């Protein structure tokens, strides 16, 4: 079974630039999550989608972060403009609506310089 696909694996940008990450969940997983994992901390949920609708985006810094899942399958997370403190690994996960089958992708490591 194919896992959760994420790209790119690594990204280095300068502060104030913009960046986008892509996630393709496991086939059939209606629920998709984006997490931010800062070095030395556990993953923090940024946004949760159910199909193409947002379930929870209470911890998403909406002044600079945005995410979409237009067709209810793959998703993009964008940061514009980036700050130094955005340096982290951005993880995508997907699951069935019940939470069953919860699986993480490999993540995108973002470094803002």
């Amino acid at each position, binding site marked *: 079974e194919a896992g959760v696909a994420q790209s790119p694996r690594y990204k280095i940008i300068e502060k104030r630039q913009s960046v986008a990450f892509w996630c393709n969940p496991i086939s059939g997983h209606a*629920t998709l*999550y984006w997490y931010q994992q800062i070095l*030395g*901390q*556990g*993953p*923090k*949920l940024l946004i*949760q989608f159910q199909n193409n609708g947002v*379930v*929870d985006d209470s911890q998403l810094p909406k002044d600079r972060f945005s995410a979409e899942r237009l067709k209810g399958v793959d998703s993009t997370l964008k940061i514009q403009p980036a700050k130094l403190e955005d340096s982290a690994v951005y*993880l995508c996960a997907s*699951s069935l*609506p*019940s*939470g069953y089958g*919860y*699986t*993480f*992708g*490999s*993540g995108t490591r973002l470094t803002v310089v």
Partner: protein
Amino acid sequence: AQSVSQHNHHVILSEAASLELGCNYSYGGTVNLFWYVQYPGQHLQLLLKYFSGDPLVKGIKGFEAEFIKSKFSFNLRKPSVQWSDTAEYFCAVLGEGGSYIPTFGRGTSLIVHP
């Protein structure tokens, strides 16, 4: 609201030593509990999970965890660690009846010296 606390932030062991990583959670109802492992440069992988039934859960690579409801704990154990167990370990809790979003602890960094 659910929360997770991992007490050991950094653990250093020699090979063949026994391991126990602490995890305590806070939630007023029924919980599902998980341990994830993240090897250097790799993604999070599920080690084991507890949903119901036998509170002693066995996972991959010789790991086990015991759910003690009275102590709100789900400690991870391995009787004899190997150098290849060097990784970050994350405990997570999922409260039933909530939003199906796990809450993660901050992780424990385990270094095993050969």
